[in-house]
Every structure is written in C-alpha cells, then in structure tokens.
C-alpha cells in the first residue's frame, strides 16, 4: 500500500505534514533538536515575540491541574530585534516551516512586528496572538472584541505579504463571531485555541499558586473545548483553513481535530511532557491513516460534519 499523503496547507502556507509545535512550548525549535529532526515536522511556531524584550512574570509561573497545566510565563522573550539578530540566522539551517508568533500592546505594535519580519525569509507565516491586553482600551484582550480583533488583523495584513494566522482565544461568548471578524478582516487562516483562563490556590499558603494569580490552562483537560471551537468555526466558515490545537497528546487526538475541521494541528503541552511528542504524534497519524485506508489527509478534514450514509 502506498504511503498516505499528509501534505496540507493553511492558506498560502504549504506544509509537508500537519504537525506543528505550538508557540511557547518548543522554545525556538533549536531546543528540540536533541530529540528529533525538525525537518520532519510540518512546522515550528516560535515563542511569542513582542516589540521590546520582556522578562516575563515572577515565579511560580506554572501550576499543574488535573490533566492540565496553568502557565503565566508573561511572554518572556528577547524582543523582535533579539529574535531577528540572535535566533533567526540559526534557523536557516533547517528546511521546515518556521512561523513567528507575535503579541502587541497596541494595534500599531502588531503592525510594526509584522513589518519587521517581512524581510526575514526564514519566517514562512505569522501567527498572531490576540490573547494580550489592549493597553489603549483598558486592558481588555484584543481577542475578545470583534472590532479590535479585526483592526489587528487588518493592520498585520497591511504590513506583511506572508500568510497571517489569527490565533483565537476560547475565553469568549461567541467564538464564531470572532472568527468571522478575523476572516472578514483578511486572515488567511485561524488558529484555535489559545489557553483557557484559570487559576489554582495553594491551600497551605492560602494564596494563588501562580505569582500572577491567573494563568492559561492548557493540556488534555481543554481538548473538549478546543474541539468544540474548531467544529463551530469550521461549520460557520467551511472555507477558512484552521490550525487546531489544545490538549493533543496522541495521533488519535490529532485525528479528532482533523475530523472537526482542522487542516493542521499544533502540539503544545504534549511536548513539555515528552519532547519527542511531535514526532510520535506524526507517526501515529500516519499509522492511523494506513490502518484505516486513508490515502490523503484531506479525506479526514471536516469529515465528522458529514452525516453518515
């Protein structure tokens, strides 16, 4: 039997296979090289980058929860200049797709970040993290307000020719309304989902575990919510390419996301628990396709929406 065809795409971004490492859970990719060959992955999404360097939040920045992990890293990163100067040159040695992940405090910052990356050939696409407080609007997250989200999307699009993927937050009443706002503003693809806002309390100290009080919940615990978001958005916007993720620990989890409508998947927490996870998951996807006679990944994408005969 011939090998299943796992090539896929997110808008103009062509991917050798559907497995990407999620932003903030794979460093700059380089940290994973002792554990596997980056060139075998569909892509690597770099740690979230801001205009100026950030030290991040005080520790504890992590708290484990049932089948999940809360993080409040606070976007520690070397800033866009540090990224371009120190990191990107080291990535040119690899053939896989690298995606930047950008975060701004204002709409303008998003534009600047996108513009700065325009000349960086190693960056294949830009994932836009909109789970950031909008400092000009009293700290309400960009990703929770359709108009602010559309403005960020338009601004990033205006400053880049690279495919733009808007990464939505699930902490909203109506994910479809926000997906639609991003789509209408020109997003090439959507990434679903970022973390759920949560917290944990240390009952001995009688204080929140995280120094930042709140954190983003990731890991298997959120998989049902992530799948529901992918399903709803695919249902409403069947033509919009989706990068699905949230709690994927195995190839079977990834298959659920394809069936719900994702064209590719991002692996986050799984890599923290097992640095070989992205490769293992890719192998398990292949194995599933072989076992079930799937010749092309496209047969699976959105297939659970089609009623049984």
């Amino acid at each position: 039997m011939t090998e299943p065809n796992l090539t896929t795409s997110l808008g103009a971004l062509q991917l050798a296979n559907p497995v990407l490492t999620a932003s903030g859970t794979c460093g700059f990719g380089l940290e994973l090289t002792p554990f596997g060959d980056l060139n075998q992955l569909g892509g690597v999404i770099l740690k979230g980058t801001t205009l100026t360097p950030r030290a991040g939040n005080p520790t504890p920045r992590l708290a484990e929860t049932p089948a999940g992990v809360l993080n409040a890293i606070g976007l520690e990163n070397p800033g866009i200049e540090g990224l371009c100067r120190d990191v990107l040159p080291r990535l040119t040695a690899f053939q896989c797709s690298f995606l930047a992940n950008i975060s701004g405090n204002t709409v303008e910052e998003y534009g600047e970040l996108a513009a700065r990356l325009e000349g960086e050939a190693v960056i294949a696409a830009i994932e836009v993290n909109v789970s950031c407080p909008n400092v000009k609007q009293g700290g309400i997250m960009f990703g929770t307000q359709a108009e602010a989200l559309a403005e960020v999307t338009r601004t990033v699009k205006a400053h880049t020719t690279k495919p733009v993927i808007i990464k939505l937050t699930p902490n909203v009443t109506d994910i479809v309304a926000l997906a639609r706002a991003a789509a209408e503003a020109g997003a090439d693809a959507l990434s679903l989902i970022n973390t759920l806002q949560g917290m944990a309390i240390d009952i001995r100290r009688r204080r929140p575990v995280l120094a930042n009080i709140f954190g983003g919940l990731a890991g298997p615990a959120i998989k049902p919510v992530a799948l529901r978001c992918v399903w709803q958005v695919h249902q409403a916007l069947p033509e919009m390419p989706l990068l699905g993720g949230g709690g994927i620990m195995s190839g079977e989890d990834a298959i659920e996301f394809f069936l719900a409508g994702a064209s590719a998947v991002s692996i986050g927490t799984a890599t923290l628990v097992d640095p070989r996870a992205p490769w293992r998951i890719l192998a398990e996807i292949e194995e599933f396709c072989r076992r079930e006679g799937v010749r092309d990944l496209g047969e699976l994408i959105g297939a659970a929406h089609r009623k049984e005969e």
Partner: protein
Amino acid sequence: MAGTGVYNGKILEHRHLNDYYSLLTIEVPEIAMYAKPGQFVMVACREQGSLDPLLRRPLSLHNILADDGQIQLLYQLRGKGTTWLWQRRPGETLSLLGPLGRGFRLPPEVNKAVLVGGGIGNAPLLPIAQVLAQFELESRFFTGARSEAHLVGVEPIAALGIPVHISTEDGSVGRQGLVTEELAVYLERERPDYLYACGPLPMLKAVVKLARQYGMAGQVSLEETMACGIGICLGCDCGGKKVCKEGPVFAIEEVVLND
C-alpha cells in the same frame, strides 16, 4: 548534553527509608553513562495511558553508578507524583527524561570545601562529594533537618570519609539549631574557600549571605516548579535564567534569590 533523552528505567530496588523518604535504584544505562553530579531527571509519575498527574517530576541524581548502568534517586514523599512513585515495585518500569541541567562543577583551585545540605537537599550532594573525596580535597559536610527522622542521605557521604556536622531544629540528633549557625562558626574559624549547597530556599539564602560575607566562591542547586526540564517552556525562571537548563546549579556570584 550528549545522550539526553527519554528512557525506560527498570526499578531494581525500592527502599522506603522511613515514612518520609525513599531510595530508588534504577537500571538505565543511557542516563547513568552520561550523567554528571548535580544533574537531574524528569520522572513520569503515572501509569502509561493515564494523563494525571500530567507533568513529570524533577528529581536529582543521588547516585550515578556509571559502570553498572544504574542511578539512584532519593526522594521525599510530598504530593500526587511522589505518592505514586512511593508505590512502585522492583521490576516495574519508569519513564525518565535526562540527564538534565548543568550540575556541580569542580572549580579550578580548591583547598578546603564545604558541602551544605538541608533536608532532602542532601540528595544531589553525594555525587559531588564523591568527586571531592576522589581528588582527596579536604572537605566537610554540614547538614540540617527538622528532626532526626528528617535527616536523610548522610551516611553515604560520611562513608567517603568526609566529616559530618549535623544540626536539627529539635535537637533530636546533633547540635540543636539551624545548619547555618554551625556553618557560620566553622567559616569564621577555618575559612574554607569553596561551598556547595542544596536545600530549602531560606537555608540557601542564609548560606549565600554567609558565603558573601566570607568572600567565598561556591555553587548552589536551586528548585523551581518545572514543566519541561529542557528549556522550552520558560516556566522555571530565576533572574532571567532557566533553572532547568542554565541550572539547577548556579555559581553563588550569579544567583539572585528573591522572596
């Protein structure tokens, strides 16, 4: 970090030392071969297939038996992960990620070294004590614990011929008081020139303060909540450095211990 990876280790022996501490002997040549003093492993504390608890637990290499392809872990019973570990039996398999981190280094010139450990903080001191003994450097081991029952990992260091000074808070064994009190007396009198320490944060702070006071160089091993252990999550920050990758052992000069 040649050889760092995820390996299955086979439990050869599991000795519950008392109600608080346990010693695991594990066959895992891939790690034993490459590990250095002060490094650690991330242990999956759940059955295959289960997703709870999700994260691996960091545990120091208490003993590296390179020739036998074995390691030993000395750990304290705390929460979910160590409770699971506590129930493992010889013959069972553990998933280990390691060896990890930057361990203790032998400094270029040492005349007189002190080892300082508090409670389970003694665990990672044995391998560096072995090196000191091997090079026949004059060294002493100061260790403190709440009470006799919380004193752990002392004998194997004593067996190397290193003199041991014990303090317990309740005086149940050794001198009554904090380890740093007895350490201060010694530093004042003997002026050793290097220090290796591991233990709870308040102890480390006091130790670093003393070291600075006496102009001593040295290294301390820190703890921070970890998710990945390999530098990809940025969870384990200490003053802009990753404890899992640039540590857990830091030079006293470079370390920033906040409250």
